């Protein structure tokens, strides 16, 4: 029982970090119909920014917002200078999603190579800002530590902020309208291109947070060829697909499901089946619901 609760806690923490990455991928998909593999690279780049700010100032509380702003900027730049011309050329055929996927994969490679060139063998370190020692409950240390509470708190606050943006502000309304019906939104006076860039920027900020939290929760350091970030990208994407790739709530539900089940498998079955389990979960969900847990067939959700 004790072990099971610990496993759940680990799974929820991991899942909440994946959910930020999943949201980052969902936001981009909704605004531009592109599966953004460069999200992993953008998160990596922003985490490096966060690490160097942390090194200069010594404060995690300055590093995190700066990394988020950097992530938003990187992401907006990518949308404006890379994706917009690309989609213009390919004529926005919704059938063709292979080429944009490959283009963002190429971008991921370039971002990694550039980071490699700048940082080389040096790693950016992002040590946990709070203790990662678990609380002691009845003589035993549980998997809930101040760091984990902080991570869950940050994710929760971001979720609330995102929900408020999407439900209560004009920007959120335009974002939803622009992804639901771009042509009509344009006629209604919404600057769809600008709104898309804004969607990418929010996505970049979410991705940057995911990167920073993944690093502090994991090894505490980022390297250009980081395995943690590959995991973050793959699991974030898988979680987004489980959730139905259109829906933010779906992304969170998918990520928590994935995080918890993988933690259970890691504890009770063995580490070598974790990745395969992710595939099995995904295919089971998609066989039962081909458009994800919260996806709706045929129509876009606003």
């Amino acid at each position: 029982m004790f072990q099971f609760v610990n496993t759940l806690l680990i799974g929820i923490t991991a899942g909440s970090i994946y959910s930020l990455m999943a949201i980052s991928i969902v936001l981009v998909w909704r605004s531009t119909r592109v599966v953004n593999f460069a999200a992993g690279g953008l998160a990596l780049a922003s985490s490096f920014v966060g690490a160097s700010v942390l090194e200069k100032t010594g404060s995690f509380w300055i590093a995190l917002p700066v990394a988020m702003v950097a992530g938003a900027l990187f992401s907006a730049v990518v949308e404006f200078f890379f994706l917009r011309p690309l989609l213009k050329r390919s004529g926005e055929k919704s059938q063709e999603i292979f080429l944009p996927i490959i283009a963002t994969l190429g971008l991921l490679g370039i971002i990694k190579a550039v980071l490699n060139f700048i940082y080389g063998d040096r790693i950016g370190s992002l040590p946990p800002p709070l203790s990662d020692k678990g609380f002691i409950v009845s003589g035993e240390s549980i998997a809930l530590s101040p760091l984990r509470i902080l991570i869950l708190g940050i994710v929760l606050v971001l979720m609330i902020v995102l929900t408020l943006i999407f439900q209560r502000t004009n920007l959120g309304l335009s974002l939803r309208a622009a992804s639901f019906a771009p042509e009509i939104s344009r006629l209604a006076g919404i600057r769809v291109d600008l709104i898309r860039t804004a969607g990418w920027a929010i996505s970049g900020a979410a991705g940057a947070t995911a990167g920073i939290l993944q690093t502090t929760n994991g090894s505490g350091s980022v390297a250009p060829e980081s395995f943690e970030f590959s995991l973050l990208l793959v699991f974030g994407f898988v979680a987004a697909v489980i959730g139905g790739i259109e829906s933010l709530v779906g992304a969170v539900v998918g990520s928590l499901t994935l995080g918890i089940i993988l933690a259970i498998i890691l504890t009770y079955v063995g580490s070598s089946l974790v990745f395969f389990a992710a595939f099995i979960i995904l295919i089971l969900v998609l066989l039962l619901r081909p458009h994800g847990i919260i996806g709706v067939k045929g129509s876009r959700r606003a």
Partner: protein
Amino acid sequence: MLKVVAVHKPQITNKHRFVGFALIALSVYILSNIVDEWRSFQGATIAIYVVAIASVILLTGYSGQISLGHGALLAIGAYAAALTQIYFSAPIWICFIAAVLVTAFFGAILGAAAARLSGPYLAGTTLALAVGLPSIANQFSILGGEQGISFDAGWPPLSFGEAFTQYKWFFWITSLAALIAMWWVQNILRSRYGRAWRAVKSNDVAAELAGINIGRSKVLAFTLSAGLAGLAGALLATTLNNVSPSVFPLALSFSIATGAVLSGVNTLGGVIIGSVALVAIPEIATSVSDRWSGSDNLATLLPDFIVSALLILTVFLAPKGPIEKIRSRHAK
């Protein structure tokens, strides 16, 4: 008297194709006699990439299904070949056939699931497969864990002479297998199945109205593509003498997808371009970085950078692939 003048467009017939294949075989034969061990190994790698990329082109370019997980299918083929050799001590060509059949069987199961999925859902599923499948080798001792299991293609027959090296032998095996596979692929793409795939890809509603069973057509494409990928995996195991999870990282799946885009994903003819690019670029990058600077760091990152940059350039400048680009320029 009425004279009918047919505007004759040169038709490529099977005879032309056969001559083309024979010429390729001849040039492989000549090449294998001039080049050294390392070049032979590279030649074998190119042949493997040809089969793997053709498999992606068949699936994505013709049938319209995305796969980011072909590395996993290669892994199935490689393990199937190695296990056939270990447990049945079968000759190598039987191992290859076993690899093709086993992988095609897995492909049929996977395709049955995949036929219901599209776009990002299929991309996610195949990606998860690529990440998940090779790692299960660590769970089952029959698959040899992290060290993997060996696959031995044997030494070249003694009748070829003493000077006939191991890698030259690999080069011959892989090239022959690639030529046979490519002959078969280009035939199937021009058969009624190939036409059905293209019809479904360009307009599935119209294709269904024309009497094509969409589901069956997609599953068939997945099965055949998997069979080809299995062959590529067995060939890869041949050149490496070994099958282990580390041979099939996610990066392998990405390289194959990359090669397919560099070749032009909608045309089979470009397949050699992507394969050569994937093998040649790291070599060129190494020599460039050696010339310009002694930095090890640059040498390791330059190949990735060049491949990525080429990839983006291809998507921007020739999204249908280099061959189509040239063709459309001539048509103007």
